[in-house]
C-alpha cells in the first residue's frame, strides 16, 4: 500500500497558543483512519489545514507526493479532497439537490445540467435523501443536513474524504446506518480520515488511529493498540488513572 | 502655526473621540451598525442651537438637556426598531444587513425632518467666541471649552465602563456575547443600555460640535463616516482605542488642511479610512482575531 496523505511536522499557532505542534502521520490509500483526542487537542485544526481552510504555520501536507499545504481550499478540493464540517454547513438558500450539484459543477468532474441532476439524485439516494431533493435545504432536520453534507462531499468523488464528527448526534439506528454507509466507501476505494468521539464507530470502522493531546501526537497504530496505549488512557481519563 | 495646528487638531480630535466612543458602544456591544448616528449628532447640534438662539440657554446647560434626550432616543430606537431585527435574525450577517438598511432608513427620516424644519442652510451661533491666549497663540474660547467637555465626558465614560460593575458587564457583552448570560448578564438589557448610552454620547458630541463649527441638516453622513473611521481605527468596542484614534484623525485632518490643501481634508480622511479597512481591519491597536 502507498501513502495517499503524508503529514510531517504540521504546526499551527494562534497568537501565543500552539494548537497543533509538529504533528506527523500518514494515511494509506484505501484506509479508514480515525483522528482522536480530547476536546481542544487540535484534531479539527488538522482537518482544517488539510482541506486548506487554515494555512499551516509550519510543516507540510502532501497528497500522493504532491504538496498541498498552503494551497487555497478550492485548489485542494480539485486535487481530490472533500470534507464535512463539525457544525454542519448546508447552503440554506438552495435546494437539497442544488447543494449536491454545487460540488458536481465546480469539482474536478464539472457536471452540469441534466447529467448533474441525475448524479445528484443518485448521491442523495445513497444517503437516503432522494425524496427530499427539491426541498429547501433550510427545512431539513439536523440529521438530514448531515446526510446532505455527506452527499455533497461524495459527489466530488474524492480520493480523500475528511469527516469531522459526522456521526455525532445520531440516534442508535441512524448510527448503524451511518457506520454502514462509511463502511461502503471503503469498497469504493475512498480513503477516509475521520475525527470522531463515538468509540463504537471508531472500533467498527477504522483500521488505524492517530491520537492527539494538547496539539501533539501521542499514539499512532492499529485501533485497539492505539486506544490501549498508556498515554492515550491518561489523556482521556486524566493523570490519576494511569 | 504649528502650535495653532496642534491645538485645533486636538480640539477636533477630542470631538471625534467623544463621538466615536458612542458608536463603538453601539456597534461593539449592541452589535448594531447605526448609520443614522451622524443624524443623531446633528439633531443635538440643532437642539443646542435652538436652545441658545431662541431660549438663551447656554450650550453647557444645553448638554444636560441633549444628553438625556439622546439617551432616550437611543433607548426607544433600540426597543422599537432594533430588537425585532435582533430577534428574527438567523445569523450575524443577516442582522448586519437588516440593521444597515433599517438605520439607513432612519438616517433619511431624521435628515428629512431636519431639512423640513431648518432648511439646507449652514447654521451656527456665537457662544464664547473670544480669543484666548494659549502657549502664545490665539484660540477661540469655545473651542477650548469643547476640548475640555470632550475630555471630561470621555474620561467619565471610561471610568464608568472600567470602574463600575455595570460597565464591566457591558464590556463583558462586547467581548463574549455568547457566554455573558452564563454569568447572569442580561444581554438584551446590556445591548439596549449600550445603544442608549451611545445615543447620549452622540447628543453630547452634537452639542460640542455646534459650539465651534457650522453644520447643515445634511452633514450627518460625514460625522457618521468619521466616527466609523475612528471606531475601526481604534478597534471595535475599544474605548481607549477610540480616544487615541479620534485624536490622531483630528490632528491628521488639521495638518492636511494647514500644510497641504484644505480641499484635500475629506479625501485624506476617506483615504486613511479605506487604507485601514484594507490593511488593518481589526484596528491599529487590535490584534487580528482568530
Amino acid at each position, binding site marked *: 500500500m502507498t501513502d495517499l496523505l503524508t503529514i510531517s511536522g504540521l504546526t499551527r499557532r494562534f497568537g501565543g497558543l500552539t494548537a497543533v505542534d509538529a504533528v506527523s502521520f500518514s494515511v494509506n490509500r484505501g484506509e479508514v483512519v480515525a483522528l482522536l483526542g480530547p476536546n481542544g487537542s487540535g484534531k479539527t485544526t488538522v482537518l482544517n489545514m488539510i482541506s486548506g481552510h487554515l494555512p499551516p504555520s509550519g510543516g507540510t501536507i502532501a497528497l500522493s507526493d504532491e504538496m498541498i499545504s498552503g494551497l*487555497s481550499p478550492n485548489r485542494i478540493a480539485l486535487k481530490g479532497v472533500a470534507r464535512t464540517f463539525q457544525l454542519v454547513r448546508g447552503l440554506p438558500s438552495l435546494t437539497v439537490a442544488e447543494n449536491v450539484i454545487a460540488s458536481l459543477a465546480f469539482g474536478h468532474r464539472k457536471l452540469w445540467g441534466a447529467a448533474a441532476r441525475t448524479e445528484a439524485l443518485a448521491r442523495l439516494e445513497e444517503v437516503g435523501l432522494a425524496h427530499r431533493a427539491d426541498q429547501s435545504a433550510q427545512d431539513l432536520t439536523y440529521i438530514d443536513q448531515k446526510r446532505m453534507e455527506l452527499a455533497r462531499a461524495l459527489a*466530488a468523488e474524492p480520493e480523500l474524504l475528511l469527516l469531522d464528527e459526522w456521526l455525532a448526534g445520531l440516534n442508535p439506528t441512524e448510527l448503524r446506518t451511518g457506520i454502514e454507509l462509511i463502511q461502503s466507501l471503503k469498497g469504493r476505494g475512498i480513503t477516509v480520515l475521520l475525527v470522531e468521539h463515538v468509540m463504537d464507530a471508531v472500533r467498527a470502522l477504522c483500521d488505524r488511529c492517530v491520537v492527539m493531546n494538547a496539539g501533539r501526537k501521542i499514539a499512532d497504530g492499529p485501533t485497539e493498540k492505539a486506544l490501549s496505549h498508556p498515554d492515550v488512557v491518561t489523556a482521556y481519563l486524566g493523570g490519576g488513572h494511569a | 502655526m504649528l502650535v495653532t495646528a496642534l491645538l485645533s487638531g486636538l480640539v477636533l480630535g477630542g470631538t471625534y473621540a467623544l463621538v466615536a466612543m458612542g458608536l463603538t458602544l453601539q456597534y461593539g456591544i449592541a452589535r448594531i451598525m447605526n448609520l443614522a448616528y451622524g443624524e443623531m449628532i446633528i439633531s443635538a447640534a440643532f437642539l443646542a442651537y435652538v436652545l441658545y438662539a431662541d431660549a438663551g440657554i447656554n450650550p453647557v446647560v444645553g448638554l444636560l438637556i441633549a444628553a438625556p434626550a439622546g439617551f432616550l432616543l437611543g433607548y426607544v430606537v433600540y426597543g422599537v426598531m432594533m430588537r425585532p431585527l435582533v430577534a428574527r435574525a438567523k445569523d450575524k450577517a443577516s442582522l448586519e444587513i437588516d440593521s444597515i438598511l433599517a438605520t439607513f432608513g432612519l438616517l433619511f427620516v431624521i435628515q428629512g425632518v431636519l431639512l423640513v424644519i431648518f432648511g439646507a442652510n449652514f447654521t451656527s451661533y456665537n457662544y464664547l467666541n473670544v480669543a484666548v491666549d494659549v502657549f502664545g497663540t490665539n484660540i477661540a474660547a469655545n473651542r477650548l471649552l469643547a476640548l475640555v467637555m470632550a475630555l471630561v465626558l470621555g474620561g467619565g465614560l471610561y471610568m464608568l465602563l472600567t470602574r463600575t460593575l455595570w460597565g464591566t458587564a457591558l464590556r463583558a457583552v462586547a467581548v463574549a456575547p455568547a457566554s455573558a448570560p452564563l454569568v447572569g448578564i442580561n444581554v438584551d438589557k446590556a445591548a439596549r443600555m449600550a445603544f442608549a448610552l451611545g445615543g447620549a454620547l452622540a447628543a453630547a458630541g452634537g452639542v460640542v460640535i455646534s459650539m465651534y463649527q457650522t453644520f447643515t441638516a445634511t452633514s450627518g453622513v460625514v460625522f457618521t463616516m468619521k466616527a466609523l473611521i475612528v471606531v475601526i481605527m481604534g478597534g471595535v468596542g475599544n474605548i481607549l482605542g477610540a480616544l487615541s484614534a479620534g485624536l490622531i484623525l483630528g490632528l491628521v485632518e488639521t495638518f492636511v488642511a494647514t500644510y497641504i490643501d484644505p480641499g484635500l481634508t475629506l479625501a485624506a480622511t476617506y483615504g486613511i479610512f479605506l487604507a485601514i479597512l484594507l490593511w488593518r481591519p481589526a484596528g491599529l491597536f487590535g490584534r487580528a482575531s482568530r
Partner: protein
Amino acid sequence: MKSVLSLQVALFVVIVAALAFLPVFASPYGLTLMIGMLGYVTLATAWALFSGPTRYVSLATVAFFGIGAYTVAVFSESMAYPLLLLVSAAIGLLVASVVGFATLRLAGVYFVIFTFGLAELIRQLVTWYEVNMTGTLGRYIFLPVTPEGIYWQLLGLAAITFAISWGVGRSRIGLALKVIGDDEVVAAHCGINVARVKLALFAVSSTIITLVGAIQAPRWTYVEPVIAFNPTVSFLTLIMALLGGANRLTGPLLGAVPLFLLFEWLSANFPNHYSIILGLLFIAIVFILPRGVLAFAEENWKRWRRHEVKTVPGVAE
C-alpha cells in the same frame, strides 16, 4: 421545457421591439421619464447581478455611474462618441478590477462602508482635481446625441443587462454566486475560486453601471462632481433592487419602475419630504418585505394554494 424557453425569448424580443418604437409616440416629457426609468432599471438589474446572490451590499453604484458621466464630460470634445463610451467602459472596468481586488477580503458592514467611502473619496478627488488643476468645477457637455438616441442606447444596454443576468442565473457561475452568498467556506471547499467569481461579476456589474452614467451624461449638458456623484443614486438603486427582490431576474425591474415613478412624483410635488419618505420606505422594506415583493407574493400564493387544497374534502391529510 424548450417551448417555454422560446416563448420567453420571443416575448422578451417583442417587448424590447415595442419599447424601441415608443419615442415615435411619446411626448418629450414622456421620453425624459422613460430615459430616467430605463436608467434605473438597468442600474438596479446590474447591481443585483453581483449583490443579489452574494449579499454584498454595494453603495459604490454612484462611484461608477459618476465615473462614466465624468469621463464623457472630460473627453466629449476630443473623441468620437462611440469611442467615448468605450473609454468610459474601460475606465469603469479598470477601477472595478482594482477595487474588487482590494475589497475581496471585506464582508458585511465593512464592505458596505468601504463602497460608500469609495464613492465619496472619488468625488472629493475629482473636485480637488477640477478646482486645482483645471481651475473650473463644472463642465459643459455638447454632444450631437438626441434624447431618442439616448433612449435607444439605454434600451439596448438594458436588454443586454437582462440577457447577461438571465444567462448568469442559469449558468454554473450563477450557482457559484449563490453558494458564495450562502457560505464562502463551503464554496471554496466545493472547488469554487471564490475570489475570481466575485471579481468577475463585480467587474461586469460595475462596467454596466459605468455605461449607464456615460450614456445619460449628455442629458445634463452641465456636469459637476456634486451632480455626477450624488449618493442618492446608490441609495435608490439599492432600495429598488431590494423592493423587487434582488435574487430574481425581474425583481429589480419590478422595484425600479414603481419607485422611479414614485420618486419622480415626490420630487415634483413634495420636494421637501422626499428624504423622509425614502427613509420610511427603507424601514418598511426591511420590516415587511425583507426578501422583496416577488418572494412575498410567491409565499402568500403558495400558502393560499395550500389552504385551498386543504379545504377540499377528502384531500386534507
